């Protein structure tokens, strides 16, 4: 009979129509600004820089090795390496980025920077409400905007962050062990040489510059 397929279809839409009043499956809308979908843990949007401790400038894990900049497929990262070294959150002397820009208007959220970073310094954020009406200022994120604390990282990607922390701790442990060994060896060597010459000051005692003296002065000047 002409029309039975049509009637079957009509029945289906009617079922959905009435179902939408009783069944959550048939009313899937999440009313965005008020309601939000539960955040999925693995989500990635744009990269951010992780820092340890409280001071974002001091605690940045980034040592500006330029690996992410080189590997970034669309080349949206721009790093300027410092000329001097500063102690990081655990007190180790490191180079640091004088300038670390990510152009989110170019970034393709591919996560390759995260993958290649040997220092776990760059991670993916879940923040997506970055709309702006300022094409040049609003979408070029500088170091200050990119730096986010490790706690924040734990909040958005708990499992991953825990794994990263464990790995870092292990590495530090190893590092410490190595340093200890080195120190022991050095001590032994020093002891052997003790008679010959007085021990020179170990490298870890370089005076620390006052915090905030050399901030990202250049970063802000670039765009207007």
């Amino acid at each position, binding site marked *: *009979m*002409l029309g039975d397929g*049509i009637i079957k*279809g*009509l029945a*289906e*839409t*009617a079922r*959905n*129509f009435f179902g*939408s*009043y009783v069944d959550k499956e*048939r*009313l*899937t*809308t999440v*009313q965005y600004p008020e309601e939000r979908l539960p955040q999925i843990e693995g989500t990635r949007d744009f990269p951010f820089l992780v820092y340890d401790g409280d001071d974002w400038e001091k605690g940045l894990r980034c040592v500006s090795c330029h690996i992410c900049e080189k590997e970034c497929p669309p080349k949206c990262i721009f790093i300027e390496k410092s000329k001097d070294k500063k102690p990081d959150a655990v007190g180790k002397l490191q180079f640091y980025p004088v300038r670390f820009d990510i152009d989110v208007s170019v970034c393709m959220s591919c996560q390759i920077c995260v993958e290649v970073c040997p220092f776990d310094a760059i991670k993916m954020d879940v923040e997506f409400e970055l709309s702006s009406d300022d094409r040049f200022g609003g979408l070029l994120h500088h170091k200050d905007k990119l730096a986010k604390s490790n706690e924040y990282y734990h909040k958005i990607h708990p499992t991953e962050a825990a794994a990263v922390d464990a790995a870092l701790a292990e590495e530090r442990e190893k590092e410490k062990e190595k340093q200890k060994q080195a120190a022991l060896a050095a001590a032994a060597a020093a002891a052997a040489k003790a008679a010959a010459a007085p021990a020179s000051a170990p490298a870890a005692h370089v005076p620390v510059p006052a915090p905030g003296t050399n901030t990202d002065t250049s970063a802000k000047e670039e765009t207007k």
Partner: protein
Amino acid sequence: MPEMIDQIFVLLKQWIMGYVPSGLQPLCSAILSVLPILVVFPLLFAITTVLERKGLGRMQNRYGPNRAGPWGILQPAADGIKSLTKEDIVPRSADHLVHLLAPILIVIASFLVYSVVPVGRNMVVVDLNAGVLFFFAIGSMVELAVFMAGWSSRSKYSLLGAMRAIAQMISYEMPMVLSGVVAIMAAGSLSTVTIVNMQAGYTGIWPHWYLFTPWGITGYILFMIAATAESNRCPFDMPEGESEIIAGYFIEYSGFKFALFFVAEYLGMMASSAMAITLFLGGWAAPFSFLTWIPSWFWFFAKLILMLMVFIWIRGTLPRLRMDQLMNFGWKFMLPLSLINIVSAGLWHYLPSGFTRWSVISLLLLLSCFLLSRNLRRNKWFQERTYRFAS
């Protein structure tokens, strides 16, 4: 008391008329009759658009507009303000006058047809003794306006839309008129008021609607299909066929001119529904004898909204036909069937009432429906298929 409420608008008008000097009485009476139409139907149009958008939303597992005003009911107001303040663009090469006249004409035509629709007991603008004829005649003006719009825009897509529109509308004009003829035969009058009055009686609790006869239901379905095509609604929305010819005949219209086409489309849809109600669903008559205490105008609008919802429902479900299929369906199925329907309505008149009459006419109609649809499906490209699998 029920009569009081039923006739409240009529009484209101009479009360006002009492204060009007007799010289102005005809004019005032006319204005008072026309005013409600100008208020009620555009309002109904606004409600329908909200209903449609929210209803479609619900069919599609979502809410639909719910931000403008409480529950989104002010959405049409926002759309209206936006349309009013939107720039009006007329293509350079277009025929400016015709381009301007088309939306005006289509709205006029859409309003005029309401003058013969009885929306309640004693509630009709003018009881023309050729009311149905008037309805169809004025309804054809819409076709003209649509063609004017499409042709004057001088865009290729609008030209295609206009060509489709004119072909489609004249093809479905015939089944629409002919399927209405059966009701006229039964009522013996072209006056819409008489036709409704003829259906106002009851047998037991059942009303004397023409819908409840074999030729009536056939006529009703044919009329509704034709009305869908006449008002360019899905699945017959070829003249504006969004996915094919972009926006069809009104592709070059912006601002309020475009809104007027929108208004006219819905007014046309409501007018066709109103005529279907008048011809087959007993107009303002209550569906059961024990419900007659509810005012007649309520029943009319209840039926109207119900039918609009069916339109929306269909729109939410069906894909569009193709032009040639539409024409085939119109000329090779609708037209012959409506002619047969006229014959069977005639036979009905001469056969003795009772079960025989029912079964003979039903059989005749079903058989012809079956044969005609088989003819439509004769094409080898119209079958369910089974598929083979390679492993």
